[in-house]
Structures are given as C-alpha cells and as structure tokens.
C-alpha cells in the first residue's frame, strides 16, 4: 500500500566511530521516518537490518562516517561512507563468518561476520567499494513493492 511519497525526500546522519552508546541512532531515525510515511512493514524491516549493520560497521571499524538516504516513489537508496581503514579483500569480507572484530567487540556480541551478508540479503541492489587507508562506501537500494 504505497504511500505518501509524492516527492523525493533525502537527508543524512553523521556516525561517530567508537560511539557504541548511540549506536543505532541513524538507523532508528530513518526507520521512524519510513513508518511515518506509511512504508510497507517488510520494506521497513529490510531497511532497518541493512542500515543498522552498516552503521555498526562504521562505529566498530572507522573513525567517522555518514549515512545518506534518498526516498523516492520507487524505493529507498542508502549510501554509507566512512573514513576508516578500508577493506583489503572485499570478497573475503563478504563471506559469512569472516570477521576481524577484536575480542572486546566480540564480547559485546558483534563479530559474527554476518553484517555485510545481512546488508546484501536485505537489499535489491548492494554495492561496496573500499580503499585501504581511506575508507569504505556502501550503497544499497531497496525497492518498494
């Protein structure tokens, strides 16, 4: 039952590396916005999973980053880019179970190596780009039904 989106809506959130206390804030804000717009529950669920995993990775691995969203009558585009260490072997990082999370992060329950696969599974288009020493960019599109 789409929806109240007759014009395009965009915006962005800052994400601060290491800030576990506010982890999930950007994704939660976007989720609230989608609820307000009356977006389909399953689309909200998929967007929540994909954006939260991307946000967590910035918090865990990078110094800082940004989540940009663009909502159109057709769907939601999300771009998460960070200033972080980058990923050396993207193919390896995409494998379920692969993680370089340090012990203290694993103790919190992160580091299953499922975040990137979760993002890919829940988006219709998933692109990842990374430069070692510079940062990582993730682009995801989730289409409305």
């Amino acid at each position, binding site marked *: 039952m789409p929806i109240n989106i007759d014009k395009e809506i965009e915006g962005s959130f800052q994400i601060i590396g290491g800030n*576990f206390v506010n982890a999930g804030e950007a994704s939660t804000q976007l*989720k609230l916005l989608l609820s307000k717009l009356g977006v389909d529950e399953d689309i909200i669920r998929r967007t929540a999973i994909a954006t939260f*995993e991307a946000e*967590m990775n910035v918090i865990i691995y990078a110094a800082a980053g940004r989540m940009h969203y663009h909502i159109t009558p057709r769907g939601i585009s999300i771009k998460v880019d960070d200033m972080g260490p980058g990923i050396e072997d993207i193919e390896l990082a995409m494998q379920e179970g692969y993680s370089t999370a340090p012990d203290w992060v694993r103790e919190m*329950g992160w580091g299953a190596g499922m*975040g990137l696969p979760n993002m890919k599974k829940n988006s219709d288009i998933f692109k990842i780009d990374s430069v070692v020493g510079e940062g990582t960019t993730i682009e995801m599109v989730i289409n409305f039904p």
Partner: protein
Amino acid sequence: MKLSDFVGELSLEVKTCKEGLEREITGVYVSDLLSDVMANSRAGDIWITLQTHLNIVAVAGMKNLAGIIIVGGRKLPEDTRQKAEAEKIPIMTTPLPAFEAAGRMYQKLKQQE
C-alpha cells in the same frame, strides 16, 4: 500468551518497562550474536541472551522484539537499564541458564497451540 505468563515459571525479575509485559508474544529467539538476531529474529519475539551490553536495546528496537530475557543470573548494567526504559523495551533477568529458560518457554508455548 503474554510475557507476564512467564514471570513465575522462569523466576523473572522485571527490570524495565513493566507495562510491556502485557504484549502478546509470538515466538522466542535464542542467540548471543547480535547480527544473528538482526538476521533471524522476528518481530514480536522474546530474545533470550546472556549479552547485557547497551547495544541489545538497539537490536531489540530495530527488530520490534517483545522483550529481552537475560539468563544465567547476569546483572543488568545501569546504562543498559536506562536506555531500555527510555526506549520502552522490557528487560527481565532469570537465574536459569539459556537452555532451561528456552525449554520452559518452548513447552508453555507448545501446550497452548
């Protein structure tokens, strides 16, 4: 069945959001890996875990879970408690280990079917 139906059975101590206990629960998911919960839990589930870190509140909120049961008699840190109260996520603790907590819930939920 509601969360409040399990309080006695699991010796639950309700730490946050008492009003959430009357919400109907649809299932239970047991895991200590947060991305696994993100992937595989379903809205309305109770989440059984030994994790007590702040981020469990965000996970439960993102997935619209009905609440969190922390097992093994672990203490709930104050910052997690405050965040859960603010975000209206019920958190309970039980002295039971995960296997037993899940087993008792499984039995009760199956009986009802």
